[in-house]
């Protein structure tokens, strides 16, 4: 039995070994995992070509569902960046306060969370760490503070791509997953603020953390539960910035220095304001919502059975409502934002070509990782490998499994460097294990993604990128050790919170 479990786990173990042991990127290790999964499914689990073909046909729809958001989110970030938006914000925010603790909260927590909400892809630490160094933080602290500060915003950040991956991989509806995920991540939000302060060498400020954390967490929960989950992380970060600004204004410890013209600041945020307008228009204007719902991509798939007798029933695949998809909304916003910036003279010649080519290059690696891992997970699911893994986990952990859920999510993200990849890898496994144990899968999956969010900031890839941005390349080991000092207790707490939530939910 253990041998069969290890065989089923082989593709995941291989990916972990290739990334952690050999230093491969997720875009190379993911395809290796796909090949291993296909070989094990075929030779070890009796999955014939019909089973593999059905799994890959379904995987296409699942991968596209996630890729549309990843591509469009990156394009919007590049449009705003091309118009000088990120640089304007990075110049304006440090001038707001001279107090070190407030700098950690405003830049390392709220601004980093806002950047995660709209961009992700390592941008929060890359942008904020050099700012903190410029304000006198040592390079290691300058990386650790925003890494912890934005962890809570990762799942609903990148305009919701990790959350989309969780729903896609697990097969649970966004409406079922939004509230548990947003609540657990909301609790992590307070911890992110408190640990950002502690990492900065400051004492925890309950009033500041309480007010800013409540504003950010409540906004994220409200937007996620309200059906506009792709702007939940962005909204939380934006409100956190506004509330943080009011708090530091009240403290009255502004720094002297160059100010950013109001017009430039307005242009910096115009893309994100348009995102809010477009999102709410599409969501809450029934005629438009109905018109955009007319193009649906979906297919029906036959039942398949492996040589070992594992049956996957006939079913309709993932339905993609193309013109109303979160990715489409982001594309409309990108086009509008580009038009506004161009009319305002904020773009330079060749901007459109640069945006297109940078977006193509920027998303290539993550797209390969997402496409291969989605295909791999579909193979494992249809071959019965996920079922074997879930039953083994359920037998080993029993009712204590919820305590493990965040650790599994964190492991996936630590290995792959991505909450999205972790959710794709383990979303279905966590759901099946929860179902075997008779637990409410939505809360277990919330534990998965909260752990994945925290694990992603610990990943060697993200630590390296952050360290390079802060010119602290030789301190990667120290950065990781300091991050672990806070992350390990937080993961333990997340496990307990997942377990308690399940008890409270009666699952």
């Amino acid at each position: 039995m253990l041998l069969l479990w290890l065989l089923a786990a082989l593709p995941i173990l291989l990916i972990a070994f290739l990334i952690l042991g050999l230093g491969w990127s997720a875009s190379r290790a993911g395809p290796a995992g796909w090949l291993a999964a296909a070989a094990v499914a075929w030779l070890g689990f009796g999955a014939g070509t019909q089973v593999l073909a059905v799994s890959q046909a379904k995987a296409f729809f699942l991968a596209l569902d996630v890729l549309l958001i990843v591509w469009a989110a990156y394009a919007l970030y590049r449009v705003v960046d091309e118009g000088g938006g990120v640089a304007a914000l990075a110049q304006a925010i440090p001038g707001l306060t001279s107090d070190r603790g407030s700098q950690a909260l405003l830049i390392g927590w709220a601004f980093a969370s806002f950047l995660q909400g709209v961009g992700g892809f390592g941008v929060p630490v890359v942008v904020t760490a050099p700012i903190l160094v410029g304000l006198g933080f040592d390079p290691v602290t300058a990386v650790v503070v925003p890494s912890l500060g934005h962890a809570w915003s990762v799942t609903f950040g990148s305009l919701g791509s990790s959350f989309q991956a969780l729903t896609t991989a697990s097969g649970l509806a966004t409406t079922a997953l939004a509230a548990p995920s947003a609540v657990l991540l909301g609790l992590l939000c307070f911890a992110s603020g408190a640990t950002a302060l502690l990492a900065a060498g400051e004492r925890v400020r309950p009033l500041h953390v309480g007010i800013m954390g409540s504003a950010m967490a409540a906004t994220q929960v409200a937007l996620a539960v309200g059906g506009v989950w792709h702007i939940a992380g962005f909204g939380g970060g934006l409100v956190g910035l506004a509330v943080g600004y009011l708090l530091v204004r009240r403290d009255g410890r502004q720094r002297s220095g160059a100010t950013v013209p109001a017009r430039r600041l307005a242009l910096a945020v115009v893309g994100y304001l348009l995102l809010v307008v477009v999102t709410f228009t599409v969501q809450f204007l029934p005629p438009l919502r109905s018109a955009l719902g007319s193009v649906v991509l979906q297919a029906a798939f036959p039942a398949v059975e492996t040589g070992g007798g594992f049956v996957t029933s006939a079913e309709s695949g993932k339905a993609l409502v193309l013109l109303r998809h979160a990715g489409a909304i982001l594309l409309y916003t990108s086009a509008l934002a580009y038009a506004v910036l161009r009319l305002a003279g904020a773009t330079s010649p060749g901007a459109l070509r640069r945006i297109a080519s940078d977006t193509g290059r920027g998303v290539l690696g993550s797209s390969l990782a997402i496409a291969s891992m989605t295909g791999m997970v579909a193979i494992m699911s249809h071959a019965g490998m996920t079922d074997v893994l879930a039953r083994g986990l359920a037998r080993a952990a029993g009712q204590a499994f919820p305590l493990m859920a965040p650790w599994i999510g964190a492991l996936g993200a630590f290995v792959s460097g991505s909450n999205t990849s972790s959710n794709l890898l383990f979303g279905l496994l966590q759901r099946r294990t929860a179902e075997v144990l008779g637990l409410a899968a939505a809360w277990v999956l919330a534990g998965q993604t909260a752990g994945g969010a925290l694990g992603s900031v610990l990943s060697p890839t993200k630590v390296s990128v952050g360290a390079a941005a802060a010119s602290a390349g030789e301190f990667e080991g120290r950065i990781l050790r300091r991050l672990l000092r806070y992350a390990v207790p937080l993961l333990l707490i997340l496990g307990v919170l997942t377990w308690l939530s399940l008890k409270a939910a009666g699952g």
Partner: protein
Amino acid sequence: MNPARDRMRMLALVLALTASALETPALAAGAGREVLLLGIAAAMVLAILFG
């Protein structure tokens, strides 16, 4: 940044997505699914080599 490597990675991605997209009509037609599976596998090998 290596344009040749990026082109190969792009080829791997397009090949993987196209072959898996075509599996749906291949299943309906009852032909071609093995070739498409080989296409996806080839895309994965390309991605490993150039990823």
